């Protein structure tokens, strides 16, 4: 705004204002054209994914960007299972795993975050420091030991094992939610305490109802974990039968050297089908995402 004011203030004649306006218009155009260019670069691979999924050819199209013949046949193929492709089953598996993970992780994260933020007890700081230290240890490494432990109990190649892997340690990721709880006014809790509420009632009746954004954020983000994850699923399910796979492991298998020429287009179809629900959830989460992540970052 100040730019405009100074422009008007300094320019004496009408024509100068006109010229300024024209220059401003050109700047706006160039600015937006530049952004458009960047966005096009960013979106190209996604466009390619969608276009290729509608190709009539089953292997990878290497000669032209857009497929030569369009067809939705591979979507039909993808939804009718064969020896390699069991997409509907994979989708259902991932959905079930995601639901369980979502429930357990959300509970754990909210519980830990609330305990660390609102309640006060002696070893609170010590526990928080221990969590920082444990987060530095590569998850991949402890995963190897977890794999053996699960194997001992016969939980590899099973969904229970995978759900446990995704959700058991979820409590360590409590920082974002804690950052949110830190902003809930303490006076509210004090008032409730004076009115005779115990801590559990404060948790349920006072803090939870005011924390809808962070609960939605935690629910969606933990629901997305099994959909996004590849490595843990591969580690645990790889040796099992195809019907047990999650979407990630199944689709990865389609790109093996011997399969890629028959299944590449189906892979693209699968990618599109998985991405649609996830993108929608992600867009909803995005609203809470910025708020959550930044408040966590500020708190350090």
């Amino acid at each position: 705004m100040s730019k405009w004011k100074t422009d008007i203030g300094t320019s004496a004649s009408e024509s100068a204002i006109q010229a300024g306006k024209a220059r401003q218009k050109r700047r706006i155009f160039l600015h937006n054209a530049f952004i458009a260019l960047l966005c096009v670069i960013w979106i190209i691979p996604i466009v390619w994914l969608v276009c290729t999924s509608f190709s009539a050819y089953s292997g990878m199209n290497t000669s032209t960007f857009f497929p030569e013949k369009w067809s939705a046949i591979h979507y039909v193929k993808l939804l009718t299972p064969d020896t390699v492709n069991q997409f509907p089953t994979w989708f259902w598996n991932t959905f079930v795993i995601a639901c369980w993970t979502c429930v357990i992780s959300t509970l754990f994260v909210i519980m830990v975050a609330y305990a660390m933020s609102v309640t006060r007890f002696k070893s609170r700081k010590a526990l928080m420091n221990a969590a920082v230290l444990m987060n530095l240890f590569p998850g991949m490494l402890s995963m190897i030991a977890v794999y053996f432990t699960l194997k001992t109990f016969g939980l590899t190649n099973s969904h229970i094992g995978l759900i446990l892997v995704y959700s058991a340690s979820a409590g360590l990721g409590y920082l974002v939610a804690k950052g949110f709880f830190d902003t809930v006014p303490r006076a509210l809790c004090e008032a409730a305490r004076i009115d005779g509420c115990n801590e559990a009632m404060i948790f349920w009746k006072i803090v939870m109802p005011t924390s809808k954004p962070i609960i939605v954020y935690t629910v969606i983000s933990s629901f997305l974990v099994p959909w996004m994850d590849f490595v843990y699923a591969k580690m645990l399910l790889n040796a099992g039968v195809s019907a047990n796979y999650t979407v990630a492991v199944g689709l990865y298998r389609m790109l093996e050297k011997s399969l890629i020429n028959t299944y590449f287009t189906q892979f693209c179809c699968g990618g599109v089908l998985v991405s649609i629900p996830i993108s929608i959830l992600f867009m909803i989460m995005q609203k809470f995402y910025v708020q959550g992540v930044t408040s966590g970052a500020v708190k350090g």
Partner: protein
Amino acid sequence: MEAKTSGLSRLGSAVSGFFAVIARFFSEFGTAMAKGDLFVKLSLLWWGAGYFRRRQYVKAILMTLLEIAVIVFTLNFAMAYVPKFGTLGTVQAEQVFNMQTMQTEWNDYDNSFMILLFSLFSFVIWFAAAVVCMRNVVNVYELQMQAQRGKHINTFVEDLREYLDKKFHITLLSLPVLGIVVFTLIPMLLLILVAFTNYDQQHMPPTNLFGWVGFSNFVTLFGGGITTTFGYAFVRILGWTIIWSFFATLTTYIGGILMSLLLNSKLTRGTKIWRTMLVVTIAVPQFVSLLLMRNFFANSGIVNTICANIGLTGFLRDIGLISTSYIPFMTAPGWVHVMIILINIWIGIPYQMLIATGVLMNLPTDQIESAKIDGANPFQVFKSITMPYMLQVTGPALITDFVKNFNNFNVIYLLTQNVFVTTNQFMANSQAKETDLLVTWLFTLTQDYYNYKMASVIGIMVFIVCAVFTLVGFNFMISGDKEGTYQ
């Protein structure tokens, strides 16, 4: 607001705080043992004694049952494994002919891994039992004090109600902490122990035993021992891991800020549409987008076709940059490194853009306005106001990002697995390739070569490097106290 102190003194206070907690725990226990009555002292042996004396019979029974459970666990379970912890087993698995059943059977062999795992598990249980036992004495002593002062002693129901009130944090924390102990802490300790054994393909339980070897795996990693190539591969991979995390963090961080400034500029029309277009790229799961990218840039992929058509491939061959009929985007060292960082920019910038947008909403605009009036150009504003502000707010997150990139398994694995094959003999001997990060190397070692001992050593090194970077980073970031500058 908590005062920000430097990283080292923060660590110092964390360590001293930790020891203070321990010291207080022991002094309370000492007081209780010294000043407690007979039943308090007896509680050390019979956990229910003190409660029994104060007529908290339910609690007394529960504690006694818990004690019995620990003893049963120790005798029936722990004793089968812990005594062998020193050797990790001596009886090799063999098939022997059983005269009675007239069948070949496996002998009663030792499984080194089980011994290691269950011994560790027992140690954790015993540690917890010791803490419970000592804590119990303190609690019982407090009961004694209450009784002496003539105060009301809680009934069992009142005690339970405490867990919804004053002890609510215990109710909240017990399950999540149990999850973390079983699925993070015990595995962590286990792998640290494995680093000191010779657990690898030649020593795979149950058919073979493995044992303690001291520091020899660490010696191997630093270039000693029989397989000298390990030292070479380690240095190469560590170097690339650091370069990768540095560039991956820096490019996406600065790119994200620039992108956010660009999108939120007053000149932009339709900010929401542009932002949605960018965010779609991160909403697509990485295993889809990255696997797509690697086929996009494959040797016979679409980008190569386009490059050949517009003559870029020919031009690059003419100036001697490539010697093949295609551009080896993902298959030649150098090319692949640059491509990985570029592709990471593609998926990283929208994410950082989201965060930067959130932070920049609170950017002190009056400072920028006055700077502009004073004649500062956009670059100067960016350098002197926007960046320092961003650094102050997101500095700690920057360090976390660095550590995350250090362990960024997905990007490297999905882009290079089965695509990039190393031609370097030294690397191949150590089952490594030029594009590997320490974590992907570790993953390959365990998944394909069962070399758990070296994987564990590498894991410990990753932990040390990450810890050092985090400490130094925090120290550097928050050294100057700039808290008040922007308020």
